[in-house]
């Protein structure tokens, strides 16, 4: 379960505490209780990030001489990375994976389900919610095995196609990216659905009613009222699912392990393979650093996007 249900969201999340609340004047020792958290974060989160930048300039390897005493090799790893034919492929596959499975798949399906739930019978909405969430609550390795079984040569999907008189391809070999994208939509849609369900609940019913009485049709109400009113939730959701999808590894590793060839080698898989299969920790770390930078850009855009609504 990589996803967090909780969204650090826009609405007035003033970090300094609420206006009008009385605060005791702060003295430095009062901040003492924050120290354990800072120590943990520095050692285990900031540490690896700094180490990642440092390690990407060395020829550290998994075993042998270079494992204990890696040498400083400057930008060699990056030069190699940018001339490696797998890198642009991998970067492209990652973009496709994020766009297709998160931005398009999870986001629109999640929004669609949340909107439909508002029209559907309460009981149906509850049952559907549970089914969608079930895929999301499962441990990631179990979800990955299940997806593997579903898309394999004689798996459930092809059995269904057979029943309809069609012969399905071997999805994991012929269309590995499609299988992975669908599997990630299956696994991750619950998050978007929950975010949008919470957002739609906050749209005041009076406004939709007023529009209805004024004769606005369903589509008009959706695009002119509902969507603009949940805009900040949409931004939040898009950023979070993008970041979550950028760090999907297990699903891809179990389903195709990046193959066949390199046809589904997204960046996390490439970093893992270079580091642990080809024993080149330094090179793997350079790939990790590139991923970190991509993640950081998204995070900054996201935090910026939240700022104006702080009021």
């Amino acid at each position, binding site marked *: *379960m990589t996803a967090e249900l909780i969204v650090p969201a826009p609405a007035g999340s003033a970090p300094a505490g609420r206006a009008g609340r*009385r605060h005791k004047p702060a003295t430095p020792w009062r901040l003492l209780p924050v120290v354990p958290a800072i120590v943990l974060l520095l050692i285990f989160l900031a540490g690896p990030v700094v180490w990642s930048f440092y390690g990407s300039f060395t020829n550290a390897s998994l075993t042998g001489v270079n494992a204990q005493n890696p040498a400083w090799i400057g930008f060699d790893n990056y030069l190699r990375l940018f001339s490696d034919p797998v890198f642009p492929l991998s970067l492209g596959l990652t973009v496709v994976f994020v766009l297709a499975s998160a931005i398009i798949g999870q986001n629109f399906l999640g929004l669609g389900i949340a909107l439909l739930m508002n029209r559907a019978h309460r009981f149906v909405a509850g*049952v559907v919610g549970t*089914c969608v969430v079930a895929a999301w609550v499962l*441990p990631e*390795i179990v979800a990955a095995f299940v997806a593997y079984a579903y898309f394999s040569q004689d798996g459930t999907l092809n059995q269904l196609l057979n029943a309809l008189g069609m012969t399905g391809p071997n999805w994991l070999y012929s269309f590995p990216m499609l299988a992975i994208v669908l599997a990630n939509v299956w696994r991750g849609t619950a998050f978007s659905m929950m975010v949008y369900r919470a957002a739609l609940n906050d749209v005041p019913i009076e406004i939709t009613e007023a529009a209805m009485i004024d004769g606005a049709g369903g589509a008009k109400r959706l695009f002119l009222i509902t969507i603009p009113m949940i805009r900040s939730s949409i931004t939040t959701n898009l950023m979070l699912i993008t970041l979550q999808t950028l760090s999907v590894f297990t699903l891809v590793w179990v389903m195709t392990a990046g193959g066949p060839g390199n046809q589904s080698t997204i960046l996390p898989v490439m970093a893992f393979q270079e580091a642990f299969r080809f024993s080149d920790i330094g090179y793997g*770390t350079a790939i990790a650093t590139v991923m970190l930078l991509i*993640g950081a850009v998204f995070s900054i855009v996201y935090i910026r996007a939240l700022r104006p609504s702080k009021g």
Partner: protein
Amino acid sequence: MRVTILPAVTPVSTRLAASVASPNKAVSALLANGILVLIALCFLLPLAWLVLASIDERASYQTQLPTALSLENFRAVLTPDLTFRPLWNSFLLSAGASVVTVVTSILAAYPLSRYSTRFNKPFMYSILFGTCLPITAIMVPVYSLFVRLQLIDSMGATILFMAATSLPMAIWMTKNFMDSVPIGLEEAAWVDGASAMTALRRIVVPLMRPGLGVVFIFVFIQAWGNFFVPFILLLSPSKQPAAVSIYSFFGQFGAIAYGQLAAFSMLYSVPVILLYALVSRGMGASFSMSGAIKG
């Protein structure tokens, strides 16, 4: 709650609105129900294999009705090496990470919630930035850092790492929960001479127990399901949690034992499903959402 409400239970104004749009209404509700049921089926379909294979002695990757109902698969995997020790390791890792996370977040959230300093804002923004970090990206550098510090294959270090990765989110949630505990009660305690830490322990923490429960369970579920972190950081089979043991056992030797794989997956998934049900039913999903969404 819902934007459209069934006519039978609606107040006058909604009934009026409903009747304005009523010719389409019944049709659209029917359509919505139909589409939703279809979507639910699509989401359930892949899970059918898991359930059916787990009770089928001759299971394969095909979904098929078992010829005979059998608990043989469960019996086969219920051995100390295969199930009990990995599950116990999973429990140690998850419980350890959750306890460390919750205690550290309470301590950190208290000054952030109660005192305003110049330090608060940059700290909360760094925290928010931390929640966004793609953890998968840093696993290779984490591995080489752990090798350097000789922390590889250490349960303790793995617990601390998992705690650190969930800390940003946990601090964010805990602070928001704590902001909603009125400060008046503590002020009374301060006047009576209690220290800030006593007030925190005796007054604030008991009042925010449900919120802390949510934080604890979310960290626990996340750690329980985590595959990549222990896969990289724990090497000896005796320390590996269920996520890793299931992968190495079935990935390497078990290409035939699909039924056992499914049975083990079920055993491994049940605890988190129960915990999730506890959070969403017992405490209300909207409650846990609001804890983090509203500042």
